[in-house]
């Protein structure tokens, strides 16, 4: 796992809250059996490194953290949630290319994303 990604395996976001500071948070809900999640993992790692100054990325396994998955109404994986200060700025369900991830984060960083 890339050093820029926080792995959450419990039921709270404390690990990502502790390191994100003023940065946006991108939560990546995935599962060990999910093919698209595996396919997207290198892109997420690249994006986490590329946006390290503005976005903190957390990977959450829905089977290890079912409570968080419920809290964020995850009905399919991968699900990506971009948030700041507890407010959801963007959300995407399904595999996403690096380019689309970057565009989603650019919009969120600029404050133009809608939930």
């Amino acid at each position: 796992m890339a050093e820029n990604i926080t792995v959450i395996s419990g039921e709270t976001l404390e690990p990502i809250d502790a390191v994100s500071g003023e940065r946006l948070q991108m939560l990546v809900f995935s599962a060990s059996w999910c093919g698209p999640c595996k396919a997207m993992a290198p892109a997420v790692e690249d994006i986490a490194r590329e946006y390290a100054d503005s976005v903190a990325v957390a990977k959450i396994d829905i089977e290890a953290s079912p409570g968080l998955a419920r809290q964020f109404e995850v009905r399919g994986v991968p699900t990506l949630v971009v948030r700041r200060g507890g407010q959801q700025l963007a959300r995407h369900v399904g595999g996403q290319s690096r380019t689309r991830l970057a565009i989603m984060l650019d919009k969120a960083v600029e404050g133009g994303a809608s939930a």
Partner: protein
Amino acid sequence: MTASALTPAMRTLRAQLRVPPADPAWGHVSDETRLLGWMLLASRPWPEAASPVLEGLLEAHRDGVEDPALWRRLRGEAVQLGDSDDRLAGLLGKVAEAAAWPLAEAGAGLTEVLTALCQLKAWRAALATGWTEADDVEAIGILTAISAGEGSAAAPSREQIPGLFAEGHPKLERRFSAQLQAATAAYSACRAEVAAWIAGACRRDESE
């Protein structure tokens, strides 16, 4: 391998296999970049809407462009193509999206292009069987309804779905299975071709 360094035996074999001559414009680039260029070219034929986008990406990789603004512009063009209503153009857009980053330090740089290329080739193989976008929409609609249990007391198990599809829509199911088989074979062949390319490059490195 330059043309002048070829032995007569290799020249004859290459001609028989229709291996195109190496493009000297790519002579200076790394194997990774050469592979990326090869995968982009393998996505041809390009319709008019896709051609400038993919040509621009080829040039940017070949010339080792570093300007972030240019890459952002290329990504914007790729996304526009990817959003096309035409599925084939959209899949070419996905190839372009995947290739619209400099390769240096990008872990996903080649895997994303590979996946997008194989998906494109799979769709082309499906179309070659006579399958159409409209057929695809219809089949997905039927399969979704069957899996939701529409018209029956309970939702069927995953294993029952193909049989129910064949029972209710035999002609469409036969064509669906044929295109699926062709698409799956094309997807696997695409991966194997890229693997062979890499193995060839590695063999050359070992012999040097």
